[in-house]
């Protein structure tokens, strides 16, 4: 090709910069990945020895080798159920409102700024809110429901934002098709927008929950208990009315609290417990994320507009 030598030199230089950047990109990727690997191996090294079945089926104990995370994982599980049950309907409804209903006015702008802001409010501030509002004003105590509600508020912006993004990805042509057939707004939303944006919404919910599951600061602030050698009452009973909501007001402990507590124990052996519990927690979040990725992949296959 006939381009001037000067130009060719410029091109060569530009292409060299390209290569350098690729190097940087890969380095950044390796940096992030290796941190993760180091962290993971660190935990495995410290905690692996404690990961036996008993670790999952025993309550906490003052003897490190006897202590398990039964109450912690059940508590985390119960709290996550409340969180999901509260955050998902409210968050999805808010997202629908903002995308499909809200007129473009001051109030909508206010709600939007507000949600954006909430997404950046430090989790510890939610803890203070929960302490003042749920624990003291509403008298809900340091219970499953308080923690669930607190974390629900915490992840609400995540769910709303994910919902809105998923809804926005549904092309306008689908909406117009439904309207043109005589669908009302709600029929359009419930028959089309909502089902088609499900993968995105679910991903957002799971990512929100996986953030909530590892949150320590807010639950520490509301004062979750640490030693608890029993489980919340079962939600289903053998006698009518078969449902039991006592578990909501039951005291509980959660994985991050358990970890936090064990790390501050004087006995060295508890550090292994803490690592093992942290490992379990990380694996739990990994699993949730993996499910989110899988769902996103599975459900999106059907949606090629």
């Amino acid at each position, binding site marked *: 090709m006939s381009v001037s030598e000067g130009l060719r030199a410029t091109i060569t230089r530009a292409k060299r910069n390209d290569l350098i950047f690729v190097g940087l990109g890969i380095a950044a990727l390796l940096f992030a990945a290796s941190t993760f690997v180091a962290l993971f191996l660190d935990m495995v090294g410290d905690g692996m020895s404690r990961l036996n079945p008993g670790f999952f089926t025993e*309550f*906490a*104990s*003052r003897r490190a080798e006897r202590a398990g995370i039964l109450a912690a994982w059940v508590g985390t599980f119960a709290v996550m159920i409340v969180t999901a049950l509260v955050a998902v309907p409210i968050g999805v409804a808010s997202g629908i409102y903002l995308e499909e209903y809200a007129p473009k006015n001051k109030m909508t702008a206010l709600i939007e700024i507000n949600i954006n802001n909430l997404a950046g409010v430090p989790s510890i501030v939610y803890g203070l809110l929960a302490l003042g509002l749920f624990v003291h004003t509403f*008298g809900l*105590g*340091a*219970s499953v429901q308080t923690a669930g509600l607190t974390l629900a508020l915490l992840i609400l912006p995540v769910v709303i934002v994910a919902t809105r993004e998923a809804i926005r990805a549904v092309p306008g042509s689908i909406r117009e098709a439904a309207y043109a057939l005589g669908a009302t707004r709600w029929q359009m939303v419930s028959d089309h927008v909502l089902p088609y944006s499900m993968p995105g919404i679910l991903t957002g919910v799971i990512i929100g929950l996986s953030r909530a599951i590892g949150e320590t600061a807010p639950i520490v602030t509301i*004062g*979750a*208990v*640490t*030693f*608890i*050698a*029993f489980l*919340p*009452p079962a939600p289903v009973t053998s006698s009518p009315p078969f449902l039991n909501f*006592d578990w909501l*007001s*039951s*005291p509980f402990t959660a994985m991050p609290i358990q970890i936090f*507590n064990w*790390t*501050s*124990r*004087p*006995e*060295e052996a508890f*550090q292994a417990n803490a690592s093992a519990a942290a490992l379990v927690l990380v694996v739990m979040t990994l699993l949730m994320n993996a499910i989110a990725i899988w769902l996103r992949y599975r459900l999106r296959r059907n949606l090629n507009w």
Partner: protein
Amino acid sequence: GQQSDSPTPGASPSAPTNTVIGIDGSSTVYPITEAIAEEFQLANQGKVKVTVGVSGTGGGFKKFCRGELDIANASRPIQKLEMDACAQAGVKYFELPVAYDALTVVVNPQNEFLSTITIEQLKQIWAPESQGTITRWNQIDPSWPDAEFKLYGAGSDSGTFDYFTEAVVGKAKASRGDYTASEDDNTLVQGVSQDLNALGYFGYAYFAENQAKLKALAVVPVAGGAGVLPSEETVINGSYTPLARPMFIYVSDKAAARAEVRQFLNFYFENIATLAAEVRYVPLPPEAYLTIKKHLDDNKMGTVFGGEPATAITIEELLRREASL
């Protein structure tokens, strides 16, 4: 029913097997109460449930005085503000000392020149006025090396901090600020064990579990006296002073009226001597427990400290005060 005035979460009046004894408060007292709760539940096959939280002494009293707790763990006596809150809410309480903790002054194990320290020297090191001026070992004692020391101590939000400052500096909460503070004593252990010029203090349990990494100093209570190392013996005989401090549980009158709480308290005092030692605290002499237990039986409520911080309370002194109730 017996529960109506005790809105302990999860309590269900119709099913006494579901009864929960709610305990919360100091993280320092926590290991003792946890050990007791664990054994108690085992002994009971879970018929009575116990929860133990760590909201801090203040957080514990806050809930306690709102009637939300049955028992508050406290690493210090109840204070004026909290007494008022309790009085206002009509919560009366039994104050029950349960064990002693020996605040331990530690240095790096490779520290050759220090094995004994006087309260006077500690005061010089920790006094607020020393901040920025007294920073080197040889400023305390010319025979010590000319090197900067690094201080490690309890967070200023903790009872440990209050007690140490009162006992050493002479005024609660009076301390220099340029030291590494942590609520998590393990991080202090970590700090001292890695730092040749470190000096720190924390609960005895953390020293006991990490003896290989730390060196405890013998403390000389009054000038010219002999240094005393912290141990069960020196605490009980009162020679490890002023850094031995009592720890308490507070039981609300309404809770104390409940059978299962009584049962729990009985269990508490039957087993405290062994269990406290197991978690590295110093139990009181058996006769002390009898006296304390008797308050409960005699319905003697209230505090013997009048809402003031107190230091240098040897077991003897404590018992004297208790007797006055």
